[in-house]
């Protein structure tokens, strides 16, 4: 499950140094974010999502979208978070490169910063249809850092 890694360098976020990667899935692609907290891991997973489409470093933070979602557990909250980003990307033709995520009581509040797709500059590779439940996990690894991951359908 770990072949095909495309590790950051992505942009450095409020959360600190970029820490995300992609992992291989037969037909599609997995995203994995890491951080000191679940919220930071969610932010990094957001950057990994953008990196499926384009280089996050090329996405300016010109506009901000507020996102709120709820779910019965952290894993489904990650599913909701990434799918909310997919929804805004699809309906407003946006790409995001900066995220501020707050998690409390099964609820997520976030700001996603980015800009409209510019086909020339961003050269988008593929649209993301949705985040799936496959390989969906939010866990604390042995080193104490949090990991948030799932496979995207592209």
């Amino acid at each position, binding site marked *: 499950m770990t072949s095909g890694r495309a590790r950051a360098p992505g942009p450095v976020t409020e959360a600190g140094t970029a820490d995300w990667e992609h992992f291989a899935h037969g037909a599609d692609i997995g995203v994995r974010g890491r951080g000191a907290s679940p919220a930071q891991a969610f932010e990094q997973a957001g950057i990994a999502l953008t990196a499926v489409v384009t280089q996050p470093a090329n996405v300016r933070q010109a506009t901000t979208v507020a996102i709120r979602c709820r779910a019965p557990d952290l894993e*489904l909250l990650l599913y909701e978070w990434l799918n909310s980003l997919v*929804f805004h990307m699809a309906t407003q033709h946006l790409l995001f490169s900066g995220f501020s995520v707050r998690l409390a009581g099964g609820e997520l509040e976030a700001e996603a910063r980015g800009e409209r797709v510019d086909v020339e500059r961003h050269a988008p590779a593929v649209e993301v249809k949705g985040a799936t439940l*496959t390989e969906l996990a939010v866990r604390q690894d042995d080193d104490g850092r949090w990991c948030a991951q799932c496979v995207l359908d592209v």
Partner: protein
Amino acid sequence: MHREGDYRWVIEPTGAMRVPAVLYADEQLLDDMDDKVRWQLCNVASLPGIVGAAYAMPDAHWGYGFPIGGVAAFDADAGGVVSAGGVGFDISCGVRTLVSKCTREDVIGVQERLAHELARTIPAGVGSTGRLRLSDPEMDAMLEGGARWAVAQGFGSADDLAHIEEQGCIAGADPRALSQRARERQREEMGTLGSGNHYLEVQWVAEVFDRAAAAAYALEPGCVVVSIHCGSRGLGHQVGTDYLRDMAIAAPSHGLHLPDRELACAPIRSGLGQRYLGAMRAAMNCALANRQILTHLCRESFRRILPGFDGSLLYDVSHNICKEELHDVGGRKRRLHVHRKGATRAFGPGHEAVPEAMREHGQPVLIGGSMGTASYVLAGAASAEGLSWSSACHGAGRSMSRHQATRQWHGRKVVDELAARGILIRSPSLRGVAEEAPGAYKSVDRVVDVAGKAGLARKVARLEPLICVKG
């Protein structure tokens, strides 16, 4: 797992499995299949109400809950389930093929101009939008009417409808079962191709294997055809997203203990199961309407360059669906909900759902290749009813991840190499082209050979590409 004949492999039920898992493959395709295919197929075989067996087609690969290339049928009377994961995110993704009397030479004479015109006219790729903007009542009409709605709006002709599954309109669609998000995602996406492995390809009939069937399908050697591969766009993706979540959350309340959350499903006879079926059928109609609009745009483009282009519809068939069908189970007809995830319905000769003019040869089964490789038209075989609920493969199937592909190929080089072979690629994304490089897929020739030898479908014709418009 034991072997039954040359191309059928059976895993007998163990543990929670209620029925066997059956794979159709030769030794090489079986070796190439990810171990997850077998694991996922055994999980499917453990779902309530499954009938017969869980089947994997020769192009099967690791999917979401169900393997891609998976077929499973459930009986509502036996507590059967419907699974959002078993249909997938791209609801009613499928292929339609248009036939013409134009020859390969006609197209080669105008190939650059035609490629440019198609790329200019067909909205493709990330951020592309269609010309239509539907109000809520118009969207409801589209979701209930499918391709019939599109024809009534002036896209294509009524003659097309007889050559589409269910005559272009899936009954039982329930637009009220869609979320607001699903509607919003479709607002600007009617008549768009999408990206990834979706394409519009101009092809020519390079080889005919079954002359009588080819004649009935109007596939003449050397003639040009057009194949369109796409689905229900953002609306279908959002229906999949919404119901996968709802089914995963509700599973314990339905007494479903899933070995893999992605198998998320609900009893057919539950409120959630019925809402999903209504939403999924609406998304199927969205896909049929979308392909109908793209057909119209394609014909317009062709006629600006080749005024004599006819482009009548050979057939339109989906490969990500759940459909209620009558099947023969132990000599008795039973109504089953057949999930085909990356598998194509393949009704055999004489089936009443096949258009009359081609009925004696069986239903056309349209198999998409990968960019730059052959595609195939097959015909449903009578034997497939007992082997796979009348189902066959759907394409080549990936053999390599997107990352591996981008490490191995550069988009520009792929485009140049294919151009040197006489195949023009038009795509807004060179990285997308690299991810879809022909070498990243299994051999479609082997997949259809095995499908034929296993008795799932008969080969009718091989199509070779001339122009490929990709998202």
